């Protein structure tokens, strides 16, 4: 009989904060600039320079802490984490060790068995390191270059409790976390640009056993999907190790996305001794209730609150409210449209249906689309007043999505206006009746469904512009 195992997962997430300047100097945090152009003596760690804390970083970190239900420490401090690496100009990272800014929070996630709270142990602030650029391929490179633009970009590290019980829960945690941070506007959470990075700790234990198994730490996962896949692989690997009668070794493993497996990086004995000690160049951080309250009062609406409001204010089904509030941009689009067009369910249908389909097809972010709430509202009104049919509306919408043009202009330019002129339609209806005597016969014999075919023919003839209700009415009158 095989042993049943329980999976234990904890995540460490690094998030770049979207402040304009770096955490300890005035340099810009902009991504993608020419190498080493966003640097100064301070972030390059030149001899004699000193850090000065950017208050905005603390504001953003407190916002994250409050949104993740944390306690904000009245007294916290910075510490030095010492290690040698070419991308770390001072050979230490200014971080927070034993007195982090935020502690004891949680995130609520949805699982197959209802909602569940995942504990947040702590959130602390620190500075990012630079980036190594290898000349040529990494195995044959003759030299390495360092870009220090990223050095000193503010980070928060969010450490979860080992509360997740499956790779899917880990992914859901990340999804919810990202959503909350995006809603706050404290980070753009772009995993590809490295503004959100995730390491995972995973272990397994026989069901019913209280103490944890030996954990491994996983690194180098560049998407939520990769996190889930790496965890699935690692859980399976650990099970096999135990099945062979061996023991799981405490180690750091790196995820290889092309090989779809984790590879051992370094063992416990090779782990760094970071020699943390209080950063003497910065004074301890004292945060009074007034500071926290001011931030609390100005906190934007969070995803869960907004979902509840969408259900109560707009009468949307929970499912719709959930999808729409999945991203702040999508929810904003919805609300902008509803302000100009007072039929929430119709707006929701269009956004969840056509809009998200097009976004997915184009492989873009919601924010990158050219559709605005006002444009959609205008298009919906064109449908209501009979200017366009629902079928044509889809064509118009696609064009709006591509070009961002006004729907009226599109209808005008493409000649998509619905034909509701009875005289004009009668001519076409007559033609179709003449051309399809067998079908007409079938209808007369009671095969009522066949009328749909004739409507379709008329629509085809008018390239979709005929008013379908009117065509239907005319056909019935004439065939009777």
């Amino acid at each position, binding site marked *: 009989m095989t042993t049943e195992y329980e999976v234990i997962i904890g995540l460490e997430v690094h998030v770049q904060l979207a402040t304009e300047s770096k955490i300890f100097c005035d340099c810009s945090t902009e991504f993608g600039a020419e190498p080493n152009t966003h640097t100064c*003596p301070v972030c390059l760690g030149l001899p004699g320079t000193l850090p000065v804390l950017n208050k905005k970083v603390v504001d953003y970190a407190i916002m994250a802490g409050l949104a993740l239900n944390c306690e904000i420490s009245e007294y916290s401090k910075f510490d030095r984490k010492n290690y040698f690496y*070419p991308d770390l100009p001072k050979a230490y990272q200014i971080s927070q060790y034993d007195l982090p800014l935020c502690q004891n929070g949680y995130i609520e996630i949805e699982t197959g068995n209802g909602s569940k709270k995942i504990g947040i142990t702590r959130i602390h602030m620190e500075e990012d390191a630079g980036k190594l650029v290898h000349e040529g391929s990494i195995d044959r490179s003759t030299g390495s270059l360092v870009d220090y633009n990223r050095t000193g970009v503010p980070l928060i590290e969010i450490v979860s409790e080992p509360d997740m019980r499956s790779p899917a829960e880990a992914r859901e945690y990340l999804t919810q976390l990202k959503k909350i941070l995006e809603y706050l506007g404290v980070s753009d959470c772009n995993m590809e640009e490295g503004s959100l990075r995730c390491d995972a700790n995973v272990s397994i234990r026989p069901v019913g056993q209280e103490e944890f198994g030996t954990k491994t730490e996983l690194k180098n996962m560049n998407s939520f999907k990769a996190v889930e896949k790496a965890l699935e692989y690692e859980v399976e690997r650990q099970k096999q190790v135990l099945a062979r009668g061996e023991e799981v070794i405490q180690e750091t493993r790196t995820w290889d996305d092309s090989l779809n497996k984790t590879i051992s990086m370094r063992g416990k004995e090779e782990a760094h001794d970071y020699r943390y000690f209080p950063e003497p160049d910065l004074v301890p951080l004292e945060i009074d209730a007034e500071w926290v309250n001011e931030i609390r009062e100005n906190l934007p609406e969070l995803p869960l609150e907004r979902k509840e409001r969408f259900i109560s204010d707009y009468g949307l089904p929970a499912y719709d409210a959930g999808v729409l509030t999945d991203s702040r941009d999508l929810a904003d689009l919805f609300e902008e449209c509803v302000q100009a067009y007072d039929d929430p369910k119709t707006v929701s249908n269009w956004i969840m249906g056509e809009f998200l389909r097009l976004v997915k097809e184009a492989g873009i972010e919601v924010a990158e689309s050219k559709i605005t709430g006002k444009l959609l509202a205008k298009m919906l009104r064109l449908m209501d007043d009979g200017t366009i049919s629902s079928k044509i509306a889809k064509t118009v919408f696609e064009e709006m999505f591509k070009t961002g043009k006004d729907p009226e202009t599109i209808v005008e330019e493409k000649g998509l206006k619905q034909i509701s002129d009875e005289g004009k339609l009668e001519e076409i209806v007559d033609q179709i009746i003449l051309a399809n005597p067998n079908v007409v016969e079938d209808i007369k014999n009671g095969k009522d469904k066949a009328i749909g075919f004739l409507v379709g023919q008329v629509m085809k003839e008018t390239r979709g512009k005929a008013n379908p209700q009117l065509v239907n009415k005319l056909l019935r009158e004439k065939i009777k």
Partner: protein
Amino acid sequence: MELYDLTIHELKDKLASREISVNELLDSFYKRIGGVEEKVKAYVTLTEKEARESAKELKAEFKGKLAGIPLAIKDNLSTEGIKTTCSSRILENYVPPYDATVVSRLKEAGAITLGKTNMDEFAMGSSTENSGFFPTRNPWDLERAPGGSSGGSAAAVAAGEAAGALGSDTGGSIRQPAAFCGVVGLKPTYGLVSRYGLVAFASSLDQIGPITKDVEDAAILLNVIAGHDPMDSTSVKMEIPDYTRFLKEDVQGMKIGLPREYFSMDFAAEVKESVLAGVQRLEEAGAKVEEVNLPSADYALAAYYIIAPAEASSNLARYDGVRYGYRSKKAHDVKEMFTNTRNEGFGDEVKRRIMLGTYALSSGYYDAFYLKAQKVRTMIKEDFDRLFYEYDLLISPTTPTTAFKIGEMTDPLEMYQADIFTVPVNIAGIPAISIPCGFDSNNLPIGLQIMGPHFGEGKIIQAAYTLEQILEIKDRRPELEVSV
């Protein structure tokens, strides 16, 4: 007296009254440097070209507080476009792109930099023998050390190679060389002077301060360099008084304590006698002197040699050969480059302290060493606070001996003892001054240390000035043979 022998305030008067020009003054100093520097070796870099240019740019009005005054700068203070080596091979060719805050303040005040002075490598040492380049010699006896780590600055001032200088003091590095060289050295309260641009040795202890020919000059320089700097989070926001207001002969009713623990130590009898004689003169002038207890003083040196190396091990980690300074050519990969660069670039004392500090911070040892040392630090602070609640100032010798011979001190631990009276002041973050109070039988200067409460520089200056006026030894200069 030659121009190079004069004090800053005397030179200020001569410049202001147009009795002399800045160029004449520079001529005098560079001629003196040309005559004695070969023997003293106070400077690592001379900046005559830049000095002459600064002189040209100076406005004729001499409005700046230090307009036209030629000064020497310790080579651990960052100077834009001028090599800043910390007397280390690892920074031998490092040219910073920015000025330390104190350097910009001196420039704004119109001061002229004559050059950068020699020091113990990264300010680690008490003799300037640890310089990665060459030792500096004591102008009073060229066989002897000038003290350290600001030995170059103190020797330059004593030898008339600069009107005044800036040094830095982590455990006595301004006061001890000032005592050995017979000049005045002031270590301000931690946080009074911005550390921005001071190449860090031990960040929680380092302070920049003046080394001058007399107390008045120290007050004048302190006026220029003190004050809040937004670039240094540990610099305090407070109203800075005009320190020259305290230049008055008056100690009437001042309460002065003599720490028993200090005077009961085993140290040079001539030093003890001379310091106690100085104290007596103050008593005669109206000060109330009493013996006091400073029980934690015994632990100060031990705590210092944990805290300072711990911080240094981290501060000096950045010299890895990646971005600036020395890089070893004998390396096949990054790790080897780090190791060889640091092995070849640092001197023995620096390596010793990096290892000490690394050990003290290592997991498993942190609590026993670093944390314990921090607790001692708190005790020492509390001891001083308690004393300054009752006493205005404390007085002790600056050093247990007068200048020792170069090469004489071979045991590092023995060398560490040279800072026994100065270290507690840094640990507590309080200000202290060293002024000459006499000479021993070898005609070597003896230093007397006056300590005050946090931001008590004014009182310290007042007492020091009073004693200086009474003693009338401030015009004594070392006799140096001038080479032609």
